[in-house]
């Protein structure tokens, strides 16, 4: 496969996003920063759903594990932002390992239900631990604490560039992964798990690795979201935060590297534009989603791959 063209495409996206930092009006500037962090979450989800073929309905727990794994030690132990990012990512890694070991005993619909139940349990835990988490109300991370490597993350431009750095790292990490032998095995498991096992691949271990990687990236996005926007709340652990990445990935193109970003951006602007036009904006957004599912069932990037660029990973 022509690696140069691929890297060019993804570098081009990063370059455009970088340039936008200097030209976007304040409102869009904030939105795109948010989209980049949430697209990172979607890319994490896509590793499991798009590439490995495992549909989780509980990824909000990993996002929230990152967010609370960061916010709790910052709030209660006075941990600095840098170490707190690591505790956030570590929490998500540990949680995804535990959930993976248990949930991967099931397949298909059972896997969806088990991940959903675990995620519900995580959300309830956050509410029950209200003494520390302050439940639905959540905790605010004060501006003074949001300093990372001497950079003030409450400054919009710094925050934008930090979000871009995270987004780019995960974007290129995914691009690298899916072109590695191990990424090809994940795709093989998605396409025909029994066959992959009978080619000598330990499919359980590969799936477990995919859950942990996916959960950890999702947690990194959750930790970054908490740090960049200064807030951790229980609503991020609710079911709709498990459904969002699924929608974004489906819209943008499951099993494509660039799809999660396109899907997240598209959804954000769709809701943004329609909510400005009509109070029935969710209806308009819903209709647009249905149309896209009907006419581009592979998602935006999936459609590009089908029509013009067969080798797009």
């Amino acid at each position, binding site marked *: 496969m022509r690696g140069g063209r691929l890297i060019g495409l993804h570098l081009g996206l990063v370059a455009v996003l970088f340039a936008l930092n200097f030209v976007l009006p304040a409102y869009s500037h904030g939105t795109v920063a948010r989209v980049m962090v949430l697209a990172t979450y979607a890319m994490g989800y896509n590793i499991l759903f798009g590439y490995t073929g495992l549909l989780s309905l509980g990824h909000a727990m990993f996002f929230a594990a990152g967010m609370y794994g960061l916010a709790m030690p910052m709030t209660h132990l006075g941990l600095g932002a840098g170490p707190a990012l690591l505790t956030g990512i570590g929490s998500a890694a540990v949680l995804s390992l535990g959930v993976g070991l248990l949930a991967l005993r099931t397949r298909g619909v059972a896997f969806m239900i088990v991940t959903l139940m675990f995620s519900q349990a995580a959300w309830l835990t956050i509410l029950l631990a209200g003494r520390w988490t302050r439940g639905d109300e959540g905790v605010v991370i004060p501006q003074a604490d949001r300093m990372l490597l001497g950079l003030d993350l409450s400054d919009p431009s710094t925050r934008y560039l930090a979000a871009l750095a995270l987004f780019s790292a995960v974007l290129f990490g995914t691009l690298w992964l899916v072109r590695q032998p191990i990424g090809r095995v994940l795709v093989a498991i998605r396409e025909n798990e029994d066959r992959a096992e009978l080619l000598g691949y*330990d499919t359980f271990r590969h799936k477990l690795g995919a859950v942990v990687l996916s959960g950890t990236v999702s947690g990194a996005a959750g930790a970054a979201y908490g740090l960049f926007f200064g807030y951790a709340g229980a609503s991020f652990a609710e079911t709709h935060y498990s459904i969002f990445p699924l929608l974004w990935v489906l819209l943008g193109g499951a099993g494509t590297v660039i799809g999660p970003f396109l899907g997240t951006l598209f959804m954000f602007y769709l809701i943004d534009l329609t909510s400005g036009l009509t109070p029935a904006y969710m209806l308009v957004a819903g209709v647009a989603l249905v149309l896209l599912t009907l006419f581009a069932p592979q998602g935006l990037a999936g459609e590009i791959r089908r029509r013009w660029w067969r080798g797009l990973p």
Partner: protein
Amino acid sequence: MSALLSTRALSRSFGGLRAVHEVDLDLGPGEVRALIGPNGAGKTTFVSMLIGRVAPSSGRVLFDGQDITRRPAHARVRLGLAYTFQITSVFARLPVAENVALAARRRLGRDRAAVAAEVARTLGRVGLTGREKIAAADLSYGHQRLLELAMGLAQAPRLLILDEPTQGLSEPEIETFKALVRTLAGETAILLIEHNMGVVMELADRITVLDAGVVLAEGAPAAIRADARVQAAYLGTAADA
């Protein structure tokens, strides 16, 4: 001769049905063994227990002196067993070359040049050169069978289990298949489930006949052909067909 693969009293029941019952089998290194028997005799169930797709109800499987009865399928493949499915099971949406590359890569690792060379060589051996880029699903049925075979070969196994490899192949493709098995003879042991008696008689060193889950007879092709019980159970009907 010390056996490469042995089974001891290997059995599997489905509910009350004894699909395979106390089968003892010894297969030498490099041997080509045909496993024949009427429909429902338990052939697929038997080989599925060898590779680890189906758990035995009782009995043991030994490979190269090790008891592998409880090992997962992927671990058995790593020891040198390979299996091609009776019902074609390829990566339908992936390109033909990637199907074979997945088989080769587990052995050859991340050496892209070696994998590419192995893919080209294997596709050449089964006669699928020129079709590398199309999706496996877009191959004809016979070509998908050949792709299955290529995926088996690309693993360079010590024992290749082929479950009805010639089903759906044209006459010239069957000729290619027979020539291919002859090139493997001596280096790779083959356990061949096959309904086509011409193929069996030409290729097999020995034949095991399974009927209703038990071994009915075992021996050299000529002896099996002459065996009256075998003719009654199987060959008679097959010869008429």
